[in-house]
């Protein structure tokens, strides 16, 4: 839709859906029809905190998986880490921590593989401007069947890891306050070891595709939706990448430290969430810098940028290659998310292999408890970025407060910047061309946002574009991936 206010014309690209959780792009034009600003609207899931309030705390690690069909394991583990603190059991037994880590790396592996092969590879293999009819996973399956099979089987492998650590493929119950409810049997270990070398080999191949594409097309991708930003995440005490636990680290676009090794339970002293009237989703920023310049990126690109090293050999070699492109300084290229996502894919499978050979996974000491507490924060590096869970629990064991900052919220401002950049570079006149839409999609996809994860049902329409003139008349209307009512 288009509307006029204060001399600005608003062009909206929006999905029509009866559920929350989808995105819409609004491009604001000035009187000269030049892009003034672009906004990505994600209708964030409201009401979940209220849904949790009043529930017994031990139910929360299971309940929060209802939040997201894409990364339920990340919510499961972030909530479990918070509830560890509630029961005084944050110093997990080796078996419990390693089982959780195995579950987490399984989640990373399947999520990153799915994103790369299903969503990203069509853009890279066919080009941003390729016909949308082939620029999708079905097109990849037709032209690159071996690659498509790898994507399916890698995703399936990650799901098998989750099944054997969480107990169920969905709605897992593996992590409980203070520990885990099962170990890994020898049979389960042997099952997962059977295909591990194949998974490592395919991960190397996926990394090579992402790296080669970025390096060979550096001139094209370096400015695509790119901008300088702060980078945020957490790292292990020795500076290594750690996706499960660590201290908060933030660096500037050029690598200067903003803060380091901060206990994430103190996150409210460092991070503030700003509200903007046009979006349901908040805009977090670093408190010491302020809202104007304190926004930051999370996810694979910042994680590789901020860590000192990766503690698995092949991923570390890949990290060094990646950092060499920018002489060791943070890389601010939006499309470099894909390369770093594949570095993490390789890291995850190396970690899975390492853990599967660790006899601690067959241990029987599963749960610890200690001094009961009333408030707790659990953080985890989810595939899409840092995920915050914060709870208060009363003396009746009921949750009285819950605050969640999901990865996509942390990347809110950067995604808006990426869309604005692409719109400025590719909008010609006032017509929303297929090319513009393609480029906007490619920029958003680099961040792998959670747009449609909470519900899913037949009848939803993925994307609709409308173009309306100065008088408010719809002069063009496009749908993507579906038919408009008037076309049916």
């Amino acid at each position: 839709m288009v509307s006029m206010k204060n001399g600005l014309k608003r062009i909206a690209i929006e999905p029509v859906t009866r559920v929350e959780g989808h995105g819409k792009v609004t491009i604001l034009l000035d009187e000269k029809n030049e892009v003034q600003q672009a906004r990505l609207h994600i209708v964030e899931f409201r009401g979940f905190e209220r849904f949790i309030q009043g529930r017994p705390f031990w139910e929360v690690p299971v309940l929060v998986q209802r939040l997201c069909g894409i990364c339920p394991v990340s919510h499961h583990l972030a909530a479990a880490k918070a509830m560890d603190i509630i029961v005084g059991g944050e110093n997990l037994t080796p078996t419990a921590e390693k089982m959780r880590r195995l579950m987490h790396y399984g989640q990373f592996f399947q999520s990153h593989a799915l994103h790369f092969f299903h969503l990203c590879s069509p853009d890279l293999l066919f080009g941003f401007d390729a016909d949308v009819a082939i620029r999708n996973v079905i097109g990849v399956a037709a032209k690159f069947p071996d690659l498509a099979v790898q994507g399916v089987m890698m995703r399936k492998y990650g799901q098998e890891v989750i099944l054997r650590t969480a107990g169920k493929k969905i709605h897992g119950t593996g992590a409980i306050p203070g520990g885990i409810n099962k170990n890994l049997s020898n049979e389960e270990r042997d099952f997962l070891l059977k295909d591990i070398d194949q998974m490592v080999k395919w991960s190397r191949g996926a990394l090579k595709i992402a790296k080669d594409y970025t390096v060979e097309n550096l001139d094209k991708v370096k400015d695509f939706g790119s901008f300088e930003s702060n980078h945020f995440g957490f790292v292990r005490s020795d500076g290594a990448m750690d996706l499960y636990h660590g201290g908060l680290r933030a660096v500037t676009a050029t690598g200067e430290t903003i803060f380091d090794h901060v206990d994430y339970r103190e996150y409210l002293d460092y991070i503030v969430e700003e509200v903007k009237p046009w979006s349901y989703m908040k805009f977090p920023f670093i408190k010491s810098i302020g809202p104007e310049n304190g926004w930051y990126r999370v996810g694979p690109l910042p994680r590789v940028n901020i860590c000192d090293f990766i503690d698995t050999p092949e991923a570390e070699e890949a990290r060094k290659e990646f950092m060499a492109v920018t002489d060791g300084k943070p890389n601010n290229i939006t499309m470099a998310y894909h390369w770093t996502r594949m570095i993490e894919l390789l890291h995850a499978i190396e970690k899975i292999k390492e853990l599967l050979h660790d006899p601690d996974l067959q241990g029987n000491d599963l749960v610890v408890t200690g001094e009961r507490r009333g408030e707790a924060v659990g953080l985890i590096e989810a595939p899409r970025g840092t995920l915050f869970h914060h709870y208060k629990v009363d003396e009746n064991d009921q949750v009285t407060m819950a605050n969640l900052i999901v990865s996509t919220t942390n990347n809110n401002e950067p995604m808006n910047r990426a869309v604005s950049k692409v719109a400025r570079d590719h909008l010609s006149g006032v017509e929303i061309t297929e090319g513009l839409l393609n480029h906007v999609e490619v920029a958003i996809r680099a961040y792998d946002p959670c747009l449609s994860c909470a519900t899913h049902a037949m009848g939803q329409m993925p994307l609709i574009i409308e173009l309306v003139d100065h008088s408010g008349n719809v002069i063009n209307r496009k749908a993507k991936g579906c038919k408009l009512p008037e076309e049916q």
Partner: protein
Amino acid sequence: MNERCRIMVIGYGNPGRQDDGLGPAVAAAFEQADLPDVTVDSDYQLTVEDAAAVAQHDVVIFADADCTGPEPFRFDPVLPGDAVTFSSHSVQPDGVLALADQLFGVRPRAYALGIRGYEFNEYREALSAAAQRNLAAAVDFLRGALNQRTVLRDGSPHELAALAGASTTANGDE
């Protein structure tokens, strides 16, 4: 003709979002039945790896909430297709079938069991009363359909229409 007919029932949706849980509720209804040669699966959404499982079956039934379809449910054939998603990790039934065809060379007969739901936008683990009635009708229908496997696998359009139409009519009469 091979009498063995391997059937897969996939119920998908988010049970934490009211009537979006209709698909998993169908799966739950059949999970404990232990029907021979019937695989039951449940998930938040369909994803690419479902193609590998689908490829191991002769008949696949995708059970999902339907926000606009007829009451109490619809039962329609699904063919491989190329549904394009914007930026979601999920795929549609026709996409799963296309992947099963292209990657594994298998084209099972497939059907969408779309159960009409009404309430989706709150976090609540409960189906609406109307959705529960539609679910009961759909489960009754599917139970009967699973006893007519050769029709599901080999039936003509006329036989399939009769199967779906008769059951819907019968449910409507109740």
